[in-house]
């Protein structure tokens, strides 16, 4: 066992912390779910990219630092501890990019990666459909073969960021006779293409955090197919594994939230000692759980670096962080007392936002019910 941070890693941490300290905006950017906020977040991504902090895990030729998993975890810790903005490029750089690196042609890498990393092109995801949520394999949006490419029709929904994004990646049924996981193709398309209609959906917080996207005979050329035709499920699984696993919810985010919870508790101790006393156990539990999550992810990363496969552990991961996140924010709301729902109160509003966001955790990227099935069946070996 050895938990000493190696010197190079500590140096990397120091460098990241230094840059973030002098560059993170002093006041929060406007909401990502407004046009102005979206633009401000793009601008932030561009500054990150230019300083080579935007996509630290990518190879250097694409603007990254070739950072390994540990460096990525360290960067995320520093990023969230610094109170830096949410990542508008997240879908692209964390979910799509690993798939492009694995399955993309050189031309696709050249075409897509840099604009993605600079946030010149922000990506939305196109997985769920009205009839295909937890049961993703039942999707029906189709891609018909036409000269030089594909013609898309159908509908996607719960497409995060799609209200303001530029491109979408998603799965389409390219073999009309196919069923379930077979006959699907992974396709990239510009949301400005003819025949695409984006209808923003207001989320719990009233903002258009996701959208429905309709396809009415949308032409997509062959070069926008990622991986083989009909291979979409396999290609997509590499993305959803990332989504559920290490690269969706980095521990740094929860550690930062837990630290803010300690501050809130300390402040409440002065203003409302009874409330602070009542929440004491829950506050320390949230802090311990964030710490446990950090350790579990670190352990998983170290195993992965040691060559072990991590597979279904990402389902355990998702169950833990999504529950931790809800409980942490519930505790904050309890501390806030009657101020809990004041969405213009400078102290309460971020917690309320965070609570609303946390409520999506047990739902998206595979509901927790599905994840429990996965843990039971693939980790514990219970019958389907």
């Amino acid at each position, binding site marked *: 066992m050895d938990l000493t941070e190696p010197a190079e890693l500590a140096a990397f941490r120091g460098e990241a912390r230094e840059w973030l300290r002098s560059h993170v905006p002093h006041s929060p950017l406007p909401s990502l779910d407004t046009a102005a906020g979206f633009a401000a977040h793009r601008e932030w991504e561009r500054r990150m990219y230019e300083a080579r902090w935007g996509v630290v895990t990518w190879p250097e030729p694409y603007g990254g630092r070739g950072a390994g998993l540990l460096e990525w975890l360290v960067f995320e810790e520093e990023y969230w501890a610094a109170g830096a903005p949410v990542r508008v490029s997240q879908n692209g750089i964390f979910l799509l990019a690993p798939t492009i690196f694995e399955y993309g042609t050189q031309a696709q890498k050249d075409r897509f990666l840099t604009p993605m990393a600079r946030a010149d092109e922000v990506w939305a995801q196109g997985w*769920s459909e009205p009839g295909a949520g937890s049961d993703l394999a039942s999707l029906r949006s189709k891609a018909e073969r036409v000269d030089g490419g594909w013609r898309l029709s159908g509908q996607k929904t*719960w497409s995060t960021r799609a209200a303001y994004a530029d491109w979408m990646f998603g799965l389409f049924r390219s073999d009309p006779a196919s069923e379930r996981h077979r006959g699907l193709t992974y396709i990239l398309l510009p949301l400005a293409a003819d025949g695409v209609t984006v209808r923003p959906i207001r989320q*719990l917080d009233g903002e258009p955090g996701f959208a429905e996207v309709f396809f009415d005979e949308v032409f997509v050329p062959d070069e926008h197919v990622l991986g083989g035709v009909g291979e979409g499920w396999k290609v997509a699984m590499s993305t959803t594994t990332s989504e559920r696993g290490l690269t969706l919810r980095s521990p740094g985010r929860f550690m930062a939230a837990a630290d803010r919870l300690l501050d809130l508790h300390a402040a409440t101790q002065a203003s409302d000692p009874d409330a602070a006393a*009542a929440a004491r156990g829950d506050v320390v539990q949230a802090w311990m759980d964030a710490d446990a999550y950090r350790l579990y992810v670190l352990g998983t990363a170290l195993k992965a670096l040691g060559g072990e496969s991590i597979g279904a552990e990402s389902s355990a991961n998702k169950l833990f962080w999504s529950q931790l996140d809800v409980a942490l924010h519930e505790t904050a709301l309890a501390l806030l007392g009657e*101020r809990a*729902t004041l969405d213009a109160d400078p102290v309460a509003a971020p917690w309320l936002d965070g609570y609303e966001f946390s409520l999506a955790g047990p*739902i998206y990227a595979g509901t927790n019910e599905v994840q429990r099935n996965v843990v039971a069946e693939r980790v514990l070996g219970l019958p389907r």
Partner: protein
Amino acid sequence: MRLAPDQDALDFAGSVRELLADLADAAALRVAWDDADGRIPGVWKRLAEAGVLGLSVPEEYGGSGADLTTLLAVLVEVGRSALPEPLVETIVGAMLLAEAGGVIAEDWLPRVVAGEAVIAVGLGPGALVSAAPWADLLVVADHAGVLCAMPRDEATVTTSESVDRGVRLAAVDVPSRGGSAFDGVHLDRAFDAGVVAVAAQLTGLAEAMLDMAVRHAKQREQFGVVIGSFQAIKHQLADAYVANAFAAPVVARASWSVARDAPTRSRDASHAKHAATVAARRAARTALQVHAGIGYTFEHDLHMWMKRTWTLSSLWGTAAWHKERVAKEVLG
């Protein structure tokens, strides 16, 4: 013995339910949420005409002189419809006025009964006064801590925006020598009445959210079957149902304790708010999880019920505050 509202009260609540289904359905609620005022036009007057606003006002002021046990079922219905109207505040305010008597009661209570006046009250542990921006009369503490009543425009009312667009929460600043001081009123009892009234609303909210979730689970298909056939869905709904089913009699008992001013009144009221809050929050979480994506949208009605649950959880004392109040009684 009876641990449920009397048949008359149930029948009356049934008629209120119909009235609300008619005038204050989800569509009307949505309009009110988008409106600057936040209320549903005409409902208050109709509640007055139906006798709801006068129900607990003494007969000498034109009311029916009923107690909280009679109001209970109405409050559950008001919760079920997530109604954005200042009913609890006005009921509790009227209770204080009736107790104080005199000119102020004679002035205001008939107007309450007629649906012409809204009262907001500032009692209990919080600093925010719910419904103050809507109120005609405020019953709040002045700087010296003395409870007094005054027309709203004599105080400074600073509204705080809430994620629940169906309430109006405000800080109220009272001029030093404003208002009429109250004598001999039982603040704690009035507070407990409000607490139980809110608890009743929470059980109604929980019922409504579970109803929505059950309806959704019977319709929504995944993996070729309706999701309500999965044990994972069934069992979380069953657990949420049980939590609320066991909160309801606790709330009913508390209404009796308040009505009779029983020695256990405060303990019973706090137990009710705690149990109802925990059950309603659980119902909200369960309903959202069962609805999944669609429940997470602003377009779906669920969020209005959830947010009302959050607000009522945090007003009139949080669950933790009430649990500690019970603990002090039971454990010392």
